[in-house]
């Protein structure tokens, strides 16, 4: 098995760039045609010819897919799908599988969907292989923001599953005022009722913006020294009792119960909640927010199921399916131009400004840069000390 990687042929005739350009062209008009004509969608053609068959094992985050897709995908493609939602933290995921990755043992999944910075690490360590773009049909197109990913410079290894951005969610009843600035996170008025994210890059971006760095400076590259004031400020807030907890996704229950008045938050969960809880708001602070980040699909190096992986990517880059997933997760679909499809499923969602942020919000978003691997260790150590582990 260990020889596979070196002997693997380079990605076939169709590269990601080709895929993108062709995808864009198709999205320009052709893709919609079958639906408009009431005909069967393109991936259904596969079904009529010969179902792909075989098996596919996918590892994804919890609550990140709609129920219908899980049943429909196997039916359409004949692929026996094993879909695991056991991915709950990038670092834990890496720790769990690193030995197997390093020994070229199959980890039991063909597709994994870590966050971009972790994907960059997997690419760097050669734990993942190029995606089978040559086997894919043309399907939709990528959002413009995701087209030149820093985490995947050649663009061969990843396709986003869902994307989103990070800002501040707050309960207006608890805060008593609109939140506009990262400084609000440090306001003594909210002592003990502020939440931050365990995901370092999200929290650090906002903390660095609060120490006076600009979005451009951050995006241009960050060293440990640049981040030091931000770390110190976070540590002081944590030790002084300003910060109640550092959380993963579980901040949602803290927001709902009112234990958090405001917290650093991902766009999706809150978009979903604001429709039911009118007091919940979400804002990208004036100083800026973190985004777009993405959870990206990678094909693990030991997988031999190129056809099935291609079918999976095809299926979920179909605008109709993509819209359905986005409607479930309330994150932003990486597939461009799904507004119409989403509007047919859920008209409210199509109007939601969290799901479809206006230009001035987009302009404030900062992508956290890739860290130098040596520096990254210092970042991780420092952040772990602050968050209490």
């Amino acid at each position, binding site marked *: 098995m260990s020889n596979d990687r070196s002997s693997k042929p380079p990605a076939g005739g169709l590269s990601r760039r080709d895929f993108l350009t062709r995808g864009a062209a198709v999205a320009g008009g052709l893709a919609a045609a079958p639906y408009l004509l009431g005909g069967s969608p393109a991936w259904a053609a596969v079904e009529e010819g010969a179902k792909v068959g075989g098996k596919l094992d996918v590892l994804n985050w919890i*609550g990140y897919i709609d129920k219908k897709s899980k049943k429909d995908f196997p039916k359409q493609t004949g692929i026996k799908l094993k879909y695991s*939602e056991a991915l*709950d933290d990038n670092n834990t995921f890496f720790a769990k599988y690193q030995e*197997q990755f390093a020994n070229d*043992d199959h980890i039991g999944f063909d597709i994994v969907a870590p966050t971009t910075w972790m994907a960059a690490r997997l690419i760097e360590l050669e734990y993942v292989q190029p995606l089978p773009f040559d086997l894919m049909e043309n399907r939709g197109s990528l959002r413009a923001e995701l087209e030149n990913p820093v985490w995947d410079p050649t663009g061969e290894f990843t396709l986003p599953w869902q994307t989103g951005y990070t800002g501040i969610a707050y309960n207006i009843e608890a805060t008593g005022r609109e939140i506009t600035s990262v400084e609000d996170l440090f306001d003594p008025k909210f002592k003990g009722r502020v939440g931050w994210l365990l995901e370092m890059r999200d929290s650090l971006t906002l903390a660095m913006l609060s120490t006076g760095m600009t979005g451009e400076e951050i995006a241009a590259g960050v060293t440990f020294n640049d981040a030091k004031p931000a770390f110190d400020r976070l540590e002081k807030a944590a030790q002084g009792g300003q910060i109640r907890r550092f959380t993963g996704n*579980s901040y*949602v*229950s803290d927001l*709902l119960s009112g234990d958090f008045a405001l917290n650093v938050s991902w766009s999706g969960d809150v978009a*979903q909640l604001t429709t039911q809880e009118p007091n919940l708001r979400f804002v990208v602070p004036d100083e800026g927010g973190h985004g777009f980040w993405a959870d990206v699909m990678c094909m693990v190096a030991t997988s031999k199921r190129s056809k099935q992986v291609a079918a999976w990517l095809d299926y979920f880059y179909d605008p109709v399916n993509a819209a359905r997933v986005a409607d479930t997760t309330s994150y932003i679909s990486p597939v461009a131009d799904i507004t119409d499809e989403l509007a047919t499923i859920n008209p409210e969602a199509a109007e939601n400004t969290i799901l479809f942020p206006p230009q001035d919000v987009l302009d404030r978003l900062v992508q956290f840069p890739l860290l130098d691997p040596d520096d990254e260790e210092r970042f991780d150590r420092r952040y772990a000390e602050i968050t209490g582990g």
Partner: protein
Amino acid sequence: MTTVERALDSPAAVEVQRSFPPPWLRRAGSWLLNIYAGLALVYLFIPIAVVVAFSFNAENTNFNFTWDGFTFANWTHPFADQGLVDAFVLSLEIAAIATAIAVVLGGLIALALTRYRFRGSGFVNLFLVLPLTTPEIVLGASLASLFIAKTYPSPVPDSRGFAAVLIAHVMFCVSFVALTVKARLRGFDWTLEDAAMDLGAGPVRTFTKVTFPLMIPGILAAALLSFALSLDDFIITQFNSGDQTTFPIYIYGAAQRAIPPQIQVLSSMILIVSVGILVTGTFFGRRKERAATS
């Protein structure tokens, strides 16, 4: 007994105190004690009541946290969440196998310690307690160091997973079983075995007809204990589970986002079954007792 003798030896100033707490105060104190104990028992059930209540929650936010109304829907579809069911079945499987192995290994140790006098028994006694006086997190980390195999030069790959969890669970259950069975066997009259032998029973027959039946109550208690401990173990399991998702690990993952109400339903089911066993056990136990005394 020496403590008591010593205590009884020095009845100083008895006479003065004889009348001190008047009977009414004593009765009141006695009642207060009962009430205090009752409250302690209630305290044990507070979170359980919440779990049962939320199994009937008509959650409408995907986050089963706030009360959104009453429904039976969760109970009519207790197995709606496939991942949860798989995790639960895996946990039952591990608990059953681990208990079976631990009962044999631990039962034999208990038999050796109570039936024989031998050199080194004190050492064995101490050794058995060590896994119990080691914090779980240390047990988990040390076992994981063994299974990850990155911590020492070894040709073995990372072998965390089903077998690793099973091995870990057997490890901490063996001590519990050995100590529980040992406690029950202490004071057992081993001459019964000789009597059986004298009456012509072979060693195997003696064991199956005399020794083993006497061990059964202890073994049952120990088995129940290990099953419960294994089913509930999170810390050691988390270190060694690899890609296996047991019931507690599933809950931990789900707590990062949304606790499906089915978790509460399953927990309530376990509760109902165990209360059921308990109540019928008490009922039949009392009937038997009454039958025996009458």
